Each structure stands twice: as C-alpha cells, then as structure tokens.
C-alpha cells in the first residue's frame, strides 16, 4: 500500500513537472487518453470506424512528413507506398492464406523495397523534377495492377481479406495503439541526430556533403523509413476495409496526403497527424450536404493556408506558448518569466 502510494506520488510529480507545464503537452496527453478511453464512452460503430480510418491516414500523413517535410524530397506519389502495402498484404492474405498480423509487417517490408527502388532513381532529382517523377510511380503501378487481373483483381481489387481481430473493440485498440506507437516512433526519429541530418539535407544538401555525411545513404534511409510506415498504413487499411483496390493508388490519394500535411504544418510530424484528425472527421460529418462537401473542404484548407502559411498547428502552438529568448525553452503564453532560466518573456 505504502509503495503504491509512493509510486502514485512520484507519478503525480512527473506529470505536474513535465506535462502540465505546457498546454501542447496537455493536449497530447488528452489526445492519448481520449483515444484510449473512447470505447468506454461510446461504442457507436460509425464513430469507431471513423476513428480507425483516421488513425490509418494519420500514419500515412506523418510518414509523408518524415520524407518530404524533413528531407525536402517532395514526394507527390506517396500513394505508391500505401498501395504497395495494401496490395502486398491482400495478396499474401488471400492467395497464400497468411494470417493478417504477419501480412502487415511483410507488406511494410515490400514498401521498404519499393522505397529503395523509387529512391535510387530519384537521388539525382530535385524540386519540381523530383515531384513530377514521384507522381508517375503510382500511376505506373496502377497500370501493372490492371495488366495482371489474375493476381491483383484488376479494377475490382482483391476482396475478402481477413480482419486482424474479429471484435470491433479489439480492432479499434489494435489500430489506435499501432497509430500512437508508430507516430511516437516517427516523432522520436525526427527528434534524434538522424532528424538533424534530415533537416540539414532539406536546407542545403551540398553543405551536408561537405560536412562529411553520406547524403545518399540518408536520403535512401528517409525513403525506406517513410515507405515502411506508409506500407504499414496500407496493410492496416486493406485489412480493415477487407479490400485492396486501385483507389489506394490514385493520384487524389497522393494529393490528399500532401494537403493534410501542409494544412497541419510540415516538418513537425504532429502537425499532419492533427490535421488528419481534424479534416478527415470533418469531411465525414459534412456528408449531410454531399453537394457542398468538397467545397467546404477546399474553403477550410484555403483559409488556413492564407492566414497560417506555416500550417495550423505551429500557428496554434505559437499562440498558446512562447519561446524563452535566452534558453529557448517553451513556456505557457500567460507566464511572465521563463520557467527554467527566469528570463523575462516579452
């Protein structure tokens, strides 16, 4: 009893000192808690379904950010990784009867190999040329899919996949926890030394080379990592929808990912995730006026880009927090002095 009380006290101290000091951390903690506690509040199948799909696309948007936001390798064909993940998982599950929880990691491996395959020819390309080239790859793959209807199901896709779990709540927890874990890993990667090199490659590739860093290796690494996470998203999507169709490879899919990331703020990881959690449910809830659906979506995105060119989340973060001019630690906007170095905040 006493030991448990001590642990609780310690836990409370950590929470108060590390989480409650910053509104952004409180929001993240609430986000985790609400997602994990959702089935206790409501078990509405429609709501559960939307959250699961949102989680899948959050992984996808964050993986785009890892490649294009951080290393600056503009990828306008991110649906390629998603589609490869979905199709690989579907083919393994339907044709070879491999259980879903093996299929999804294998699908991720397939997407990593695709990342290598795409990354190598793209190494020499920059800016617009890179964007246009990457856009072509999912279209090429779609051509291959249509050319081999025996294996890929052609325009109908592969249907009849197994669900990962047969219970609705079980599925919910598998998807949401996977999303939270993968997104935390992506955020950790970008926060590490590797993340600094990714940032630097975006800023000035030649200067990174002159610092003795093998930029080829790091760019390929970014392609592979991004492919890995997007491949998992694709595999999870296929098993949830129980179908892997050509829609996963569509150009509109690639562009939606870019819109999510730009809306939320690129090179942040949490930005695109938040953007998906705002925009995807919004798009679902305006289904009541189907004729205005895309129009509302476009207006919201345009307004955000017009008034918050850095994206919604960095803008909000700057409003609720400010950076100490001396030690660069973030503080609540209401504080007069820095919580670490007590410098006066302006």
């Amino acid at each position, binding site marked *: 009893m006493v030991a448990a009380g001590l642990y609780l006290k310690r836990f409370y101290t950590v929470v108060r000192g590390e989480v409650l000091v910053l509104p952004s951390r409180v929001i993240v903690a609430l986000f985790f808690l609400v997602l994990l506690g959702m089935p206790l509040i409501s078990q509405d199948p429609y709501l559960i379904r939307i959250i699961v799909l949102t989680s899948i696309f959050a992984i996808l948007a964050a993986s785009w950010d890892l490649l294009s936001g951080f290393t600056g390798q503009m990828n306008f064909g991110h649906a390629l990784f998603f589609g490869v993940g979905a199709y690989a998982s579907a083919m393994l599950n339907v044709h070879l009867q491999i259980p879903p929880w093996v299929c999804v990691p294998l699908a991720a491996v397939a997407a990593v190999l695709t990342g290598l395959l795409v990354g190598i020819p793209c190494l020499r390309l920059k800016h617009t040329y890179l964007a246009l080239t990457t856009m072509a790859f999912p279209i090429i793959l779609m051509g291959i899919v249509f050319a081999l209807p025996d294996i890929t199901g052609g325009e109908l896709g592969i249907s009849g996949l197994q669900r990962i779990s047969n219970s609705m709540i079980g599925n919910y927890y598998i998807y949401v926890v996977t999303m939270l874990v993968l997104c935390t890993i992506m955020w950790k990667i970008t926060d590490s*030394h590797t993340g*600094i*090199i990714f*940032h*630097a490659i975006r*800023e*000035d590739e*030649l*200067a*990174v*080379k*002159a*610092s*003795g*860093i*093998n*930029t*080829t290796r790091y760019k390929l690494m970014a392609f592979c990592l991004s492919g890995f996470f997007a491949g998992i998203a694709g595999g999870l999507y296929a098993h949830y929808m129980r179908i892997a169709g050509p829609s996963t490879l569509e150009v509109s899919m690639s562009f939606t990912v870019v819109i999510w990331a730009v809306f939320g703020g690129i090179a942040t990881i949490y930005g695109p995730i938040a953007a998906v959690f705002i925009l995807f449910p919004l798009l679902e809830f305006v289904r009541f006026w189907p004729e205005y659906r895309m129009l509302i979506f476009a207006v919201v995105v345009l307004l955000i880009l017009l008034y918050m060119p850095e994206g919604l989340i960095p803008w909000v973060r700057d409003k609720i927090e400010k950076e100490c001019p001396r*030690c*660069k630690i973030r503080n609540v906007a209401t504080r007069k002095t820095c919580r670490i170095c007590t410098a006066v905040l302006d």
Partner: protein
Amino acid sequence: MAVPFLEVEALTKSFGGLRAVDNIQFRMENKEILGLIGPNGAGKTTLLRLITGILKPDSGSVRFQGKQLVGLKTWDIVNMGVACTFQNMRPFRRLPIIANVMVSCLSPRSMRRGEWVKVVESKAMDALEFAGISDMALEKASTLSQGDLKRLEVARAIATEPDLLLLDEPFGGLSPAETDLMAKSIRRLHKGGRFGRLHSEGPAMIIVEHKLQQLMKIVDRIIVLNFGTLLAEGKPDDVVNNPAVIEAYLGQGGGQ
C-alpha cells in the same frame, strides 16, 4: 621518397569554352599554410572545389597522402581529412547554430575514435567555443551576422577534425577587427592541441583570400593564379614583388 602530403597534377576543368582551371600542378607539405591568390575569376574557388570533389575535373589528378581523390565522393574526401568552407556561406538557416555544427560532428571521421553519440553535442559546443560563437549556440543560423557566419563555417569545418583545411575567403566581408580575430583563430588552430573534446593536429591549410596584407602574416608560401593558370609560386615577399603578379593585379605598368 616520402609520399607528398598533397600533390595536384595537371588539373584541368572547363565550363563550356572557359578553361577555369588549366593544367595546374603544385605540391604541399604537411602542416604548411598555403595562400592562394589571384584576380577575380582566376579559378581559385574552382580549384578548391576540384580538390574537395564538389566539381569533377576534366583531367589531372589530386593525391592526398598518396591517395587519389579524383572520382571520390565529397563525403569520402571529407572523411579522409580534407575539410572546406564555402565562400558564399551555406549555413542550415532554419536550424539552431549548434545543430549546424552537430551535422559535422556526426560524420564518420569525427566519430572515428568510437566516441559515444552523447558526446556529439558537447563536441559541437567546443567547436563553437573555438570559433567564438558559443554564446549564440541556440539561436537560429538565419539570425547571424556576416562575420559570425564565417565563424560558423570555420566551426563546421574543424568539427570534422581535418588534416587539410581549405578556407575560401575567411576574411571576406569582415571588419578589420573581425579580420584580426579570424586570423588569430586560424593561427591558434594551426598550432594544434585539444580544444575541449575537439582535437586538432594542426592541419595544413590552403587559404584563398583577397586581403593580402592579412594573408601575408599567416602563410608560409603563396601560389598566384591568373586565368586558370599558375602564374607564380614562392615566399610571400618574393611573390608580391614579382612583376608578373603586379601586372595581373593592377594591369600593365601598374607597378610603377
């Protein structure tokens, strides 16, 4: 015969019809400081870029400690111990200054003694300390002044712990006071030693510079380029009194 430290042989590079570097050859000894001067467009920067592999030469060879550098990737050359700075500074503007230097500290050469990854930050800090901008370590690089950017370039280069340091106009755009500081840093670096976690063997240097007065105080030997060719080579005093050099700089009859 001992292997020369740096040996450049018959190096040629053309841009279209312009021969930017034309059949240049010279040798350099370990720990030597070599000045590289010449009028604008003489091919000085191109020569440095050929040595570091940023540009590929049309023909010729560059040997560093007996190893051929032509054909190697820039990062391989840097990891062999040749570091360079850029004339038009190229910082990672949106990154904090310390992160700029950490990129160099993460290179295989800088980590070659099996240092812990944890050490990277403090090593980057020592490099900034040496360059004299450690007080601004957390600021974004875009906030730096011209002179501090030069210092950042130097910090980034020495963080790879080079044996040969190529400095492209280290005094360019600096005030007289800043120039003196920079010259002092260069001399201190050349003496070698330990600066915190940063180890300097006292690298040999090639310095491209227009401020001759300052340059003369530092260098052991000077090479003069003009229109991509080697015009003169020798001790600083001999070179400045060389009629051909005076003519190249000031035009015909300029010496009188």
